[in-house]
């Protein structure tokens, strides 16, 4: 699956895009975020602090939503356009 990061979160993590196979034990966005946090201190910090929003296949959703391997998941801070 594809995971995208935007704004301050992208900067904190040092990457805007990640391609990975969805691990077997991962069912929801929140499960995946827990797995990502294990990638190192930067990830632990970036995903551990503050509030961020998520979208699956470009539709806003909640972190209890289920994921499948062909999804595009995006994680980002609250939006500030306009």
């Amino acid at each position, binding site marked *: 699956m594809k995971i995208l990061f*935007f704004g*301050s979160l992208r900067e904190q993590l040092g990457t805007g895009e990640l391609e990975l196979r969805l691990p077997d034990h991962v069912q929801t966005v929140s499960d995946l975020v827990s797995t990502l946090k294990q990638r190192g201190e930067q990830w632990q910090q970036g995903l551990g602090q503050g509030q961020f929003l998520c979208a699956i296949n*470009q539709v806003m959703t909640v972190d209890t939503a289920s994921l499948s391997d062909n999804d595009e998941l995006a994680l*980002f*801070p*609250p*939006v*500030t*356009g*306009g």
Partner: protein
Amino acid sequence: MISISVQREDFDVGEEYQRLKADCRTVGGIALFTGLVRDITGNPLTSLQLEHYPGMTEKSLQATAAEALQRWPVADIRIVHRIGELKPGDQIVLVAVSGEHRAAVFSACEFIMDILKTSAPFWKKEVYRDGEGHWVEAKTSDQQRARRWQQD
């Protein structure tokens, strides 16, 4: 009719206005809002970096405009939002709505701006003269304004 552009280039308010004006003979009024880059922090601003989520941003703006068309009797909706590096005084966003009567075009225009600010995936980073950068944080006052439009 809805027209959405997310672009690096600047836009010409006069041209956008003329296009809406020419589009329909039954148009009795046009409301236009433009948002600008302002420099109000203590630390002088050199630029504003605007990031978006290609694909989702356009869909989000399209959905907001479609909701406005459903809620108010308006004719055309035009949204232009810039991305990339902007300078103080630059234009960021244009929302223009045409229709038969002013009440509907005012409301639709304000609705679109309020929803855009709280749901369209854009992120702003301010870069100051001393080289420091700061990601703009979402405001609760914007959330409150957007909530006013929620229907029961």
